[in-house]
């Protein structure tokens, strides 16, 4: 280490002489994020807390362990769709086909488990076929977007119509298909015993703490400054509180007693997709394409490939969500994939803080947004409001969230350059 080089560059965040940076790290990073128009999840967490407090006063049977489990299962399918939406929005694209694509998955999973149909497979195989089919369809739609250059809005709008049409044509003849396979139905109806629940909470918290420790060791070994060690401790404590808290409440519930498998599935996908988005080159490239596609291309990134894979992810997540939604009803009927599912999924991602303009957002925002939507609709329901009110309130929340995003973006434009 030659000292003259060190003198030449005192300003860069370097390991040595960095105590001050580590101390001020938290605030500085918060300030940098604000300057860049990155508000994070703070507003939405505050909003969610307010919603919960409000309904707890408004409806007597809202703030109960039973209803807590209800909300988890109600939101699971929606959350899966919203995970896929986050990736598509990160590219600055849109996928309008996911609602009915989830219906196609439901149809496929019901059809391929149907006893006596001649193509009855074990539940797991039926699920794999349904999800794989949706991934293929998503990839096909993505190819038209990425290779031909048709706007994703149009391609997936066509997809919306086509897959709705397919569902109508099939189910007009068949009516309702009942799902009897236990594996499939379990995705929405299985509850862990209380001991299994505690073990799951311990495993999740333990692996998170280990992963954090691993990254700290990695940084120390490379001699890179650890900014805000306090934040790391706070994060681990937060995850511990969230997981153990969830299990405690779920174990306390009566009617469906125990931690719902659907909730665990959501967490598994949350972790897996967050890893994909934040820790792999692929995820980095998704952010890059969404931020500046031309820069990404010049950096040697295969932009069409990234786009196609993202639409495959979107399709696959619609498939996973469709299976869970069908399992919850134990059947598939003419309404499958319709209603407000598509718009709720997009709203969830956006309410959670993912930008419609591309390049900004997190996988977890889908979970947070879905939590808001499911809580509001569940709360209004238990308080005795009609469907119309639910739509209006959800709409207002969506508008607020996007307004916040737009204002943040304007701040970013002003601070940049």
């Amino acid at each position, binding site marked *: 280490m030659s000292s003259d080089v060190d003198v030449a560059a005192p300003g860069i965040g370097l390991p040595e002489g960095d105590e001050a940076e580590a101390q001020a790290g938290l605030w500085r990073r918060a300030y940098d994020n604000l300057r860049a128009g990155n508000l994070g999840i703070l507003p939405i967490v505050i909003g969610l807390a307010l919603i919960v407090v409000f309904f707890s006063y408004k409806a007597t049977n809202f703030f109960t362990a039973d209803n807590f489990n209800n909300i988890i299962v109600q939101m699971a399918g929606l959350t899966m769709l919203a995970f896929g939406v986050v990736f598509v929005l990160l590219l600055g694209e849109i996928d309008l086909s996911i609602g009915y694509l989830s219906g196609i998955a439901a149809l496929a999973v019901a059809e391929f488990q149907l006893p006596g149909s001649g193509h009855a497979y074990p539940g797991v195989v039926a699920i794999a076929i349904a999800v794989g089919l949706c991934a293929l369809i998503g990839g096909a739609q993505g190819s038209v977007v990425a290779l031909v250059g048709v706007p994703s809005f149009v391609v997936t709008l066509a997809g919306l119509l086509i897959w709705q049409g397919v569902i109508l044509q099939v189910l007009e003849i068949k009516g309702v298909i009942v799902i009897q396979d236990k594996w499939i139905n379990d995705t929405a109806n299985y509850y862990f015993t209380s001991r299994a629940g505690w073990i799951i909470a311990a495993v999740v918290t333990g692996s998170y703490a280990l992963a954090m420790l691993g990254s700290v060791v990695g940084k120390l070994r490379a001699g890179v400054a650890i900014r805000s060690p306090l934040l790391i401790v706070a994060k681990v404590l937060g995850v511990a509180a969230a997981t153990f808290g969830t299990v405690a409440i779920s174990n306390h519930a009566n009617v469906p007693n125990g931690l719902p498998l659907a909730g665990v599935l959501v967490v598994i996908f949350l972790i897996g997709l967050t890893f994909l988005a934040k820790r792999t080159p692929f995820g980095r490239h998704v952010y890059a394409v969404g*931020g500046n596609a031309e820069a990404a291309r010049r950096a040697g990134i295969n932009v069409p490939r990234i786009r196609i894979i993202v639409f495959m992810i979107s399709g696959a997540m619609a498939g996973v969500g469709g299976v869970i939604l069908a399992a919850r009803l134990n059947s598939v009927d003419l309404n499958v994939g319709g209603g407000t599912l598509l718009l709720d999924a997009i709203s969830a991602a956006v309410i959670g803080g993912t930008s419609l303009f591309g390049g900004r957002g997190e996988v977890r925002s889908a979970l947070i947004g879905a939590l808001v939507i499911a809580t509001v609709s569940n709360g209004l329901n238990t308080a005795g409001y009609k469907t119309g009110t639910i739509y209006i309130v959800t709409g207002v929340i969506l508008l607020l969230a996007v307004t916040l995003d737009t204002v943040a973006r304007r701040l970013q434009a002003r601070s940049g350059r």
Partner: protein
Amino acid sequence: MSETPILQLRGITKSFGSVQALADVDFEVLPGEVMALVGDNGAGKSTLVKCVAGTHSPDSGEILFEGKPVTIHGPKDAAKLGIEVVYQDLALCDNLDVVQNMYLGREERDWLWRLKEPLMEQRTADTLRSLSVTTIRSIRQPVASLSGGQRQSVAVAKAVQWNSRLVILDEPTAALGVAQTRQVLELVKRLGDQGLSVVLISHNLHDVFEVATRITVLRLGRDVGVYEREKTTQQEVVQAITAGIPTRVAGIPETTPELAS
């Protein structure tokens, strides 16, 4: 010339439909020199650069790298040879931070496909330090929050950190203020001092005369001359840019007397 040019273009021609952007252009860069490429708007400077970067393929002509003929089909091919381009309209992702931009498209990853963030952060700090880019407070801040000069410095640093041999800068100071222009010119000088070859495109002859060793003038898609900085004047270069050199465009009477006088 005893020294083999690191980059040599021979008879490059390129048309976009009816627009002839480049006509029979010769161009060369020697190892370790800062070669300026100047010319009026639309002279074909950016097009020439894009032919070298593989964004456009020339209609005819050949490209030699270190004396050997090469074909370049895209940024990856150019990077393999050690050619890096910093474009006129910056190629940074505003939503990513400095480290992420520096490694964009060439991320270090382990066997589990995990990004090696600490390693990339460390090396980014080293690169910036070696180039004396000192004003960036944190390399983990999004590029959107940097000033124009800082962004340009990041773009240049990104280009030089891959053991590149030849760095092409397309109007790196066009949008910058006085102090920030200084910052980038100092950086260009240091690249030359470190033995890299640099092609500098600029409209500002003052800047060009400060850092370049030689100057190539393009006019209406043709190369009209190569000047050594030591042996020429700004006036002569301006004349070449606007009117061409009399000997080259013989037959246009107005150009001859001026130079003769």
